[in-house]
Every structure is written in structure tokens, then in C-alpha cells.
């Protein structure tokens, strides 16, 4: 069995640590590029959302490298993501590719027994003892937390750095070195080394950069191909950005929600607008908008793929927050046809507007 998984931000580093720790054969799909998207669009139905198409591209590229099993998480909420595995398998089958799907669904929906059954189908490939398997899982969790922490700090302090470009250089290096490192322990060491390096970068806290919160649909804000590298562009312009929806956040949030002890402030803030979960991350989007406003952010950018059902609801709510709390919000809708020039012009104009409001110049 050769396991592969679709890209989602930095999860490939955690995936590498996990499977190397377990000693299971795995294939990391090549980093998503325009070509991946093209392959995905060719084989997907027209109407599905962008994440589906990029994932299909990822699968096909890793099948070509020898993968035969796909590991993805599932959901049973009203959002389309829960049905992905169904149609994706049919699409790959119709292309004549034999491939297995292991879908990690919520245990409360499919039953604990089935859940453990699916997990063990991965774990039984490994010949290690149970203790060592648990250790590998722990290392993977550590890795995803570390890399997300590094990225979060780099993105936020980019506006405060003394020597321009230091954070973006570090971020590029850490990803490169982590993927080249051999073995799980080695990768963790690299991440820890870079965590210290990031902490030691000189920052000037008297600066007042533009601070922007990035909210919206989880896949499109994490995956830099689908949002046309918006965070990198903002970083190079010296804008501080913050987003809460990282893969590590998702892991923590899902685990806490399953145990019903989730006391995240996001849901408390979202309550006045959206009382219940309507699928996807609409509630988180609204809650984030409120939280970012309270933390004194200058503007918000909402990103979601065309036709995303939960985000359409939150897009309807956001203008009210914009008006009531006087915070500019830009909604960007992306799909495979998004033109770069028009997209960047809108982002730049939005930054100009905030500059005007703040009376600063970047």
C-alpha cells in the first residue's frame, strides 16, 4: 500500500513525519501548480467547487508517482466536502485508475467501530509496536503545530521586521529543509531550529503596519494556489496578516468539538449573527470577522470558491458587520478562471483605501 493525500497548506510536512515514523510507504503529491489545476479541471465536473478540482489534480499526479491509496478526512455536515470521496472515486475509476479511498469520518456519525476499523487499515501496514505508532502520531501533531506556528509568526510580524524580507526568506527555507530532511526525528529537529530562528529575528514594535485578517473558506485560504498567493503578496508589501484557520487549528477544533468541550471565542462572537452550524466554516468566518475587529485590525479579506454554499450565507452577513463596526471587508471569489491582474488590482485598491483611512504610507 502506497498512501497519498491531497495538499492542504503545511499538512504534507506532518504527513511526511507521520508516515516516516510509522514506516509506511507514502507519496507526497508534487506541490500544486497551474498544471495540477489544469489536470483537475479536465477530469472534474464543471460545477463543483475549486478544492475538488485541485484535489483531483493532486491524486492524478501522485498516482503517476506510484500511489494506490488515498487518505482523506470526511465530514457529514451539509457542506459539499463530505461527498467529495464519493465522486472523486467515481472520477478516478472512470479514468481507469484503480485506487482505494480511506475516509476518516467523524466517529459520532459512522460509529466508533467503523472509525477504528478505518484507522487500523492504515496502522496495520506498519510493523512497529503500538507504543511506537502512538509516538509517531504524537510527532506528526507536534510537527503540524510547529510549522503552523512558524508560518503564523512570520506572516504576522512581516510588517514589523527591521530588515525587509527576512521572514519571507525564513519561511521559504524552513519548508524546503523540512521536506529534504530524512526521518521523522530529523524533520522535527529542523522545525525546532527554525522556530528559534524566527523568534530571534529583529522586530521593531514601534512600527504601525497595516493589519489584515484573512477569513473565509478553509481550503481556499490555506491553499496558496487557489488564492493566487495572496499572503505572499501581502507579506512582500509589508502588510501583517493573520488567519486562524490553519490545519493545526482544524485538528484541535475537531477534537475538542467531538468531546463537546470546545469553548473557542469564535463561536461566542458569531452567536449574535449565526446561532447554529450551517456547514462548512460560515460560523467561523463571521466569528473571525468580529474577533479581528475587536483586536484592532484595519481590514478583512474574505476568500471563497465560486458556489461555496456556506460562505454565500456569511457573505450576506458581512456587509452588516462592515456597516455597524466600520471595518472594510473585501470579498474575493476564486475559481480556475480567476485572472491574476484583476485580482491583484482589487487587493491593491483595497490596501490603498486602508492607507487612506489610516493616513500612513507603505
Amino acid at each position, binding site marked *: 500500500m502506497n498512501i497519498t493525500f491531497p495538499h492542504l497548506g503545511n499538512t504534507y510536512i506532518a504527513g511526511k513525519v507521520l508516515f516516516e515514523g510509522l514506516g509506511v510507504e507514502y507519496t507526497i503529491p508534487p506541490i500544486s501548480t497551474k498544471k495540477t489545476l489544469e489536470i483537475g479541471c479536465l477530469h472534474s465536473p464543471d460545477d463543483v467547487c475549486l478544492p475538488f478540482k485541485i484535489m483531483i489534480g493532486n491524486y492524478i499526479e501522485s498516482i503517476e508517482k506510484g500511489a494506490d491509496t488515498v487518505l482523506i478526512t470526511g465530514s457529514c455536515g*451539509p457542506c*459539499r466536502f*463530505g461527498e467529495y470521496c464519493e465522486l472523486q472515486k467515481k472520477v478516478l475509476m472512470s479514468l481507469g485508475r484503480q485506487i482505494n479511498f480511506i475516509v476518516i469520518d467523524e466517529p459520532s456519525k459512522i460509529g466508533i467501530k467503523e472509525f477504528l476499523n478505518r484507522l487500523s487499515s492504515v496502522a496495520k501496514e506498519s510493523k512497529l509496536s503500538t507504543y511506537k505508532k502512538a509516538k509517531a502520531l504524537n510527532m506528526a501533531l507536534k510537527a503540524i503545530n510547529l510549522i503552523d506556528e512558524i508560518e503564523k509568526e512570520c506572516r504576522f510580524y512581516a510588517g514589523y521586521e527591521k530588515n525587509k524580507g527576512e521572514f519571507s526568506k525564513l519561511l521559504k527555507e524552513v519548508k524546503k529543509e523540512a521536506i529534504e530532511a530524512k526521518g521523522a526525528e530529523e524533520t522535527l529537529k529542523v522545525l525546532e531550529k527554525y522556530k528559534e530562528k524566527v523568534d530571534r529575528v529583529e522586530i521593531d514594535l514601534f512600527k504601525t503596519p497595516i493589519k489584515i485578517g484573512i477569513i473565509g473558506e478553509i481550503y481556499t485560504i490555506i491553499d496558496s494556489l487557489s488564492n493566487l498567493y495572496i499572503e505572499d503578496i501581502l507579506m512582500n508589501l509589508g502588510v501583517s496578516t493573520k488567519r486562524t484557520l490553519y490545519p493545526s487549528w482544524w485538528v484541535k477544533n475537531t477534537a475538542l468539538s467531538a468531546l463537546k468541550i470546545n469553548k473557542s471565542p469564535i463561536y461566542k462572537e458569531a452567536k449574535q449573527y449565526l446561532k*447554529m452550524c450551517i456547514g462548512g466554516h*460560515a460560523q467561523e468566518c463571521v466569528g473571525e470577522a468580529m474577533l479581528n475587529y475587536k483586536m484592532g485590525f484595519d481590514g478583512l479579506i474574505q476568500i471563497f470558491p465560486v458556489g461555496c454554499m456556506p460562505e454565500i450565507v456569511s457573505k450576506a452577513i458581512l456587509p452588516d458587520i462592515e456597516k455597524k463596526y466600520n471595518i472594510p471587508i473585501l470579498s474575493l471569489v476564486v475559481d480556475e478562471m480567476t485572472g491574476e491582474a484583476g485580482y491583484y488590482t482589487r487587493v491593491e485598491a483595497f490596501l490603498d483605501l486602508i492607507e487612506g483611512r489610516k493616513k500612513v504610507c507603505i
Partner: protein
Amino acid sequence: MIIGIPNALLNIKYRDAIQEFLHTIGITTVVSPKTNKEILDLGVLNCVDEACLPVKIFHGHVEYLRDRCDIVLVPRIMKLHKNEFICPKFCGLPEMVKYTLDIKNIICPTITAYNEKTLKDSLYDFSKTFRVDKEKFKKAYNGFKSNIYKYNKINSSRSNLRVLLLGHPYLIYDDFINMGLIKKLNQYGVEVFTEDNIEPYDYTYRLIKKPFWTFLRNTYNCAISLVETGKIDGIIYISSFGCGIDSFSIDLIKKDVGSFPYLVLKIDEHTGEAGVDTRIEAFIDLLKRRAKYEYNISSLG
């Protein structure tokens, strides 16, 4: 007090039942007229651009009703089957209407109705707002129950050419959105089946995962059971542009029925009637020719 019922989305199906329920507890109702150009324009003007056509039209109906009644009924329909949802947009519909139309006088009961008890509880919560005693509620609930299947079922005469019309009920029963599709099909002498006049078998075992959308399960089961039993000659799927559920069900069915005649009509606010007419005509020509020649040609060439 006058309650306005927008004649769109699932209200089309349950309009009579809701009206009967409210009349029995002593509330006057006003139902918005069938969708027309004015309502469509109101909806398109006010709604979020990315929403699908039926949601836009619902906004138009609410906007039309806002000055013609005291309070508008915007139900939040969560579940009609256990462990199944309708659509995220249905769950968030009251919020969408409230903030895009900036309207204060709406009432949004949460309807969860996967069995008798939950339906009764949801309706009881709804009637609490009007301070109704238990006796009256019971009578009103019975009225609701007896009217629930009263919406217009399609009667079409028997014919050799049988077509299954798939799609959400609010597309099939709204003659303005679908441009009189059923009438047109009847003129061509086609017998029309819809989800409501057949009893499908359960074919979801063919899928890896049990679907969690009621619409997806219904359409899939209908299509597969009629194709498998050979009761139909073709499928017409009417869908609105940007519908998340249809983007999956169209392809799931297409991958399962193979080369069976299958026409997908995508509809949005810019759809031209002539184009749709041509496609239907061509599809019916194809079905007729297929019935005549398809099985008479030797497969050996």
C-alpha cells in the same frame, strides 16, 4: 395580524398546509403571487450575487411581501429525514434575508421534521409565538397534516414516450423559472414522471457513503430505479446554476446510467427560452429515433 408566505423554495410544496395551519389558529395569511418578472428583478437586485436562482427569487418574494403584510414567514428548514440535511443555504436562509434585505419583520421558525414527534415539536414552538392553547394547536396540526400532500401533482396522459423529470421541487413546480417545461413536454406527447408520482427503491447501497442530502438521495434513487426497471426512455435534469447539491447528483447519476439519454438543463436569470426549446425538441427527436431504430440495427455493423 397578517402573515406573508413567500411562494418560493419549499413553501411551494407546503404552502397549503402552512396556510391551513395558520388559518386554524386564527391568523390571516397573504401568499405572494406566482413568480413573475417583477419579483425576479427584485430578487436579483437585492440578493448576494453568488447565490443560486431559487434563493434570489425567494428574496424577491420577501421584498414583494414586506409592505403588504405585518410579518413575513421565512422558515429555517433543517432536516426532513434523520441524519440528512437540506442545503446549507436553507439553514442560513433567515440570516441571508435579514441582512441583505435589511428587514426586521420576519419570523423564522426552525423546522426539524424527520418524524411525527419532531414535526409536532417544531410547529408547537412556532405556534407559541401566537399564544395558542393546546386544544387549538391540535386542531391546527391535524389541518396541517391533512393538507401536506395537496400541492399540485402532475397529471399527464399515458404515452409511449416516457421521461423522468428530475430536479428540486421548487424548480419543477415554478412555471416561471422552468419556462413551462412540463406543459411543453406534454405538448410533445411525452408522459412525465417526477419524484412525487413514483415510489423509488433504495439504491444508495451502490454508493460508498450514505448521502447526507435529502435531495441527492431522492434524485439518485428515482433515476436509478426507473432506469433499472426500464420504465422510462430518457431523463431530463433541471438544475439551477451554482447549485451545490446538483453539481454532485448530476454526475453521480451520469456515471451510473452510462449511455442512457440524459439531458441537463442549467437555468439562471439570463436563460433564454428559445435555446431551451431547441434543446428539448432535439432531445425528444433523439428519443423517438432511438425507439424506432436503435434496437433494429445489428451490432455487428
